[in-house]
């Protein structure tokens, strides 16, 4: 498979015993939903894909993205974006600076970057918010800035770590469709870790359950 994300015979061990195994292919625009009880290692799988697995873990297998084997690639060069349940906006930067932090360095000139950010703000309905302190935004606004910050880095795949669980019901539905629509529109393979069956249903893709060993 040229496009998409493949997890080839991935196995993760913690201090010698096997935490989980995974052998999946996620096509562009598709979502793999990973479910299972807390503490079973769902987030560990995401760490492995993104390249930040702790030194107390061992892993076998390979991660391929768009035809590249990225298993040994440093995290910054993998082009895998991630969203957590918290927005994790950088508190010392304004909204626009947060987005600029994410914006790919392929957009070079100051003018182009500024334009691109203004455009991004309007895409998420936050025109005029450029100089705002992120701490003053509502939960939904923060989530959208966070999503946009990631998208601006032009990732080739998207990882979601319980991304909607902190939002209230109305917002959750809204964010879900925003994220999944964006992923489909940009043809990004998605791996989502969640507790929520609704998330899985909305994602509509393959489901993988991890059971405690």
């Amino acid at each position, binding site marked *: 498979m040229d496009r998409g994300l493949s997890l080839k015979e991935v196995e993760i061990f913690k201090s010698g015993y096997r935490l989980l195994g995974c052998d999946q292919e996620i096509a562009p625009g598709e979502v793999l939903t990973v479910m299972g009880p807390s503490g079973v290692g769902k987030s560990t799988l995401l*760490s492995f894909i*993104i*390249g*930040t697995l*702790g*030194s*107390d873990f061992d892993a076998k297998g390979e991660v391929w993205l768009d035809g590249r084997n990225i298993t040994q690639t*440093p*995290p*910054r*060069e*993998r*082009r*895998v*974006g*991630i969203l*957590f349940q*918290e927005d*994790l906006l*950088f*508190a*010392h930067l*304004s909204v626009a600076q947060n987005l600029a*932090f*994410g914006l*790919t*360095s392929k957009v070079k000139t100051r003018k182009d970057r500024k334009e691109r950010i203004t455009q991004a703000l309007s895409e998420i309905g936050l025109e005029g918010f450029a100089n705002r*302190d*992120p*701490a*003053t935004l509502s939960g939904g606004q923060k989530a959208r800035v966070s999503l946009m*910050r*990631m998208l601006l*880095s032009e*990732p080739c795949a998207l*990882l979601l770590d319980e991304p909607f669980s902190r939002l209230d019901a109305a917002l959750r539905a809204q964010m879900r469709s925003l994220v999944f629509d964006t992923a489909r529109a940009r043809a990004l393979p998605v791996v989502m870790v969640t507790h929520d069956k609704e998330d899985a249903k909305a994602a509509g893709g393959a489901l993988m359950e991890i059971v405690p060993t």
Partner: protein
Amino acid sequence: MYPLRWMPRLTLLAMLGPVVAGLLGALAPAFGWMPAIGAQRLGFQAFESVLNWPGFATATRLSLTTGLLSTGISLGIVALIVAGWNGTRAFEALRRLLSPLLSIPHAAAAFGLAFLIMPSGWILRLLSPWATGFERPPDWLVVQDPWGLALVAGLVVKEVPFLLLMTLAALPQTQESKARAVSAALGYSKIRGWLITVFPQIYDQIRLPVYVVLAYAMTVVDVALILGPTTPSTLSVQILKWIGQPDLSFRLWAAAGGIIQLLLVIGALGVWRLGEIALGRWARRQVVQGHRGRFDKTLQVAGLTLGAFIAGAVLFGLLSLALWSVAGLWRFPDLLPDALTWRTWQRHGGNLTELFARTSFIAGTSAALALALSLACLEAEARFGMKNATRTLWLLYVPLLVPQTVFLPGLQTGMIAAGVVGGTGAVILAHLVFVLPYVFLSLSDPFRALDPRYAVIAQALGKGENAVFWRLRVPLLLTPILTAFAVGFAVSVGQYLATLLPGAGRVSTLTTEALALASGGDRRAIGAFGLMQTFAPIVPFVFAVFVPRLIYRNRRGLLNG
């Protein structure tokens, strides 16, 4: 970045080398080996002499009781204040009053306290003769009492701000407001609920600072000289007296006394640890009982009163230092001096300016070095996941737990042998040994508490490790970084033995001069030097408070922490 990977080990070596060298330098004379004074007979004679010294039992007991009491009381007051008042306006006011006290050198605070509470002090002047009838100060044993209570008070006054700051630094890592809400909803009193739900998490984080406070309180010299008993003194002061004996063979006693002092500190830390475990067990049983707590209001008022009293004692103490520095003749029971004069300041002015500059240079350099090393260690830990390597960083606290009277004289000999004695550089290096642990202590918790997912996100956004450090960690941690620098600065300003010995007395700072003058008991000179000593470290603290406010005036998320 390979050098970064080696930073923790290098830092440890730089910090522990002097301590180990100093300890070895103390062990030899303790066992009778000091050829410079003709002592070459190995054995336990020095230990026997110390154990047979008539004041040994009392001095030892004093070191233990003053150390344990002052640490326990300080911790208790801090817990009461935070449990009863955190989040209220009264707490904010108290915190603002207490935090600056951290930077005040122990000696200056002790002088201030003495000027207040002694029989000729301000409190009695305020009440005399109209209320007390005293025309002359009563012959009351208030300061230097044989039980060491004044010493305990002097230590509490300084340790409460320190532990409060450490507690406040640890609070964000707990879910305090939620825990409060939950325990209140379950019907627990404010204080009991906090003690059950939040305090154990806090204590886990401030354990090392508490140990440092205990070790410090047991071995303190300057405060004990000012407020402590003299018949006999605490063991650490007695060791200093032995070092000061004209008969050189007392150096062996001093070395042996130092080793005993070290064992005593280790023993006291063990007792404290056992106390922690016992208290924890008892508390868990109590929790199971489900008592909701009583006397909430009383305890709250007590906490606030004690906190306010401490702040008041130090602030009025400083005010009395200031007044003494400009006083003409000032007799008892006059509340104020007969006349005010600038003579003390004129007499010491030039000297004070020069000392202020040198003190600041030494403090600034050692604090900056300590900050750089601490950041490098913490960054290495975060970057390489060096959990095992950095666990051993607790060894950094060894210089704070090993009594200074034990290893500094030995270190002096070593430094002379290495040819690095007698310069500002040697003093800076020696200060680093003591400054680094405090800087690391005050920086490591906020640094480690920074959500690691920020780094994950930044890397996923295509940023490298260096960008994560410079563009995320440093700006997000600006307040803790500046605070850590200020703490290190203050620690350096307060160093006495660590300036005197490596500098061979040639490098004088505000503190060495203040203590030299203190031995003469000239309250006017003490007032002027104590005040300058207080003022020097306040400057960086002011920066630590106001620079982030200026830079992040529009960033609520960073100011409210």
